[in-house]
């Protein structure tokens, strides 16, 4: 049986966020939809907010936490349902972006929630809980934007 580390699992999130950032830059440069253009500047900050959560923890503690072994793999395929990253960036509208971002936040919170079920040390538990809270806050903000019906 393959053994995974917490670090490997978190790297999947980072890789996905990196792909999203590239996609968002393409939307920024190609989209003619005003809603999409405004949202992109909001959404791109998500990766930075994740980094800010990590920066609140001691670097050595994070290095240690990343080595924690997780017995079972936890798949992370947030784009499987909507496949936003396959869409032509110039054809994206704000409503689609917003709805998809809410799905991503839910998937991320779910992914972290599954990680929490593995035996972690207190620091790693605190880190994952902070990341879940970030996703919950982010989703709430997106819900507010959705309710405004601008996009």
């Amino acid at each position, binding site marked *: 049986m393959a053994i995974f580390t917490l670090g490997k699992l978190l790297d999947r999130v980072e890789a996905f966020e990196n792909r999203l950032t590239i996609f968002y830059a393409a939307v*920024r440069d190609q989209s003619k939809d005003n*809603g999409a253009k*405004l949202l992109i*500047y*909001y959404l*791109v900050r998500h990766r930075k907010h994740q980094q800010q959560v990590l920066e609140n923890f001691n670097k050595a503690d994070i290095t240690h936490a990343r080595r924690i072994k997780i017995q079972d793999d936890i798949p992370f395929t947030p784009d499987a349902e909507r496949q936003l990253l396959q869409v032509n960036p110039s054809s994206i509208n704000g409503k689609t972006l917003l709805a998809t971002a809410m799905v991503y936040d839910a998937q991320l919170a779910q992914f972290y929630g599954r990680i929490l079920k593995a035996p972690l040390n207190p620091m790693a538990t605190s880190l994952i809980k902070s990341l879940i809270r970030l996703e919950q806050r982010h989703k709430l903000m997106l819900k507010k934007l959705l309710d405004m019906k*601008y996009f």
Partner: protein
Amino acid sequence: MTKITIVDDDVEFSENLSRILQQAGYEVTVKNHTDGLLQALARDKPDLLILDVMFPDNPVAGFDTARAVRLKKETKNIPIILLTAVNQVHPMDFAACDIDSEWMPVQDFAEKPLAKAAILKKISKLLQVKAKKHS
């Protein structure tokens, strides 16, 4: 005389701000749209740019313009203060912590409505930083 360019589609707001800055001893140019702005900045070489984010035809014209200013050789060193009335229209909380070189390459944010003392302090601080860089 230190030159400041204000770019904001709100005519009344930009005139009021212009008056405040002129009273404080600055030479002020006001533009109410971003058309031809880069060329004007390259020509006039202001010491500071105060730039609104949302314009009627583009809700992120300020962000786009800031990035374009940084890419142009003649304008890339102009300090920028972004005006963020966008937070009143949409709950997006854009703030100074969002400043980065790729997406928001500006020096500071200022939330509308502006407090006179606060904006003058921001301007003075940025001009001092610029002067230090060039001394």
